[in-house]
């Protein structure tokens, strides 16, 4: 198995796909490498969050995604 990386909102356009797989385990450095330069640049912004296994990380650089887990890349929201 692997880690599923899910691109949301404008990051989906930037990545050119909805979902990408990366080998597990996946940490912050591995994530930056797996998503490509454009998305990696966006991930540096404070207002871009990361969720792992359904939980938003307080410190995204502390990412440790295991086999079968989903990592969601969350750009700034705009609901309502």
């Amino acid at each position: 198995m692997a880690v599923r990386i899910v691109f949301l909102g404008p990051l989906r356009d930037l990545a050119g796909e909805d979902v990408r797989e990366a080998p597990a385990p996946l940490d912050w450095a591995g994530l930056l490498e797996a998503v490509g330069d454009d998305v990696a640049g966006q991930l540096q912004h404070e207002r871009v969050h990361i969720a792992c296994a359904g939980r938003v990380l307080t410190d995204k650089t502390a990412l440790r995604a295991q086999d079968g887990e989903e990592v969601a890349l969350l750009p700034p929201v705009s609901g309502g």
Partner: protein
Amino acid sequence: MFDVHLLHESFAPSAAIDRLSNVTPSAGGVASFVGKVRNGDEVEALELSHYEPLTEPGMLALGDAARVRFDLAGLIILHRIGRLEPGDPIVCVAAAARHRRDALQAVDYCMDHLKSAAWFWKRELRSGEWQWIEPRDEDHADLARWAVEKATV
């Protein structure tokens, strides 16, 4: 009545508000806000996306927070996802309370959070081009009024 839902299809806000009013006979009033896709704004369509594992749990947590913060007899939070046409309702928040300021403030509070602290992404179709919408600075300022501990629910 405590109804929090993500909706995939168009809905009738006033029917939901009436339902809330009918099931809260001891409340003195019902406040509501309905946001819709503007017409005549050169927007041909709006698309709302979300992230399943976070969005509905976040809306439920928002509803719980509003119920703790304000004295409510009932609360409805409805939010569309998917493709919407001009005139379509996007969001409906309605609160029933014994005192009107609780109802009005609960609606204000939930709207501020849905606008810039809930997991939705919105893009507009203008002249055949899709454009992503970011929250306005005003929306962040509105949210800051409530001095929330967490950045996002």
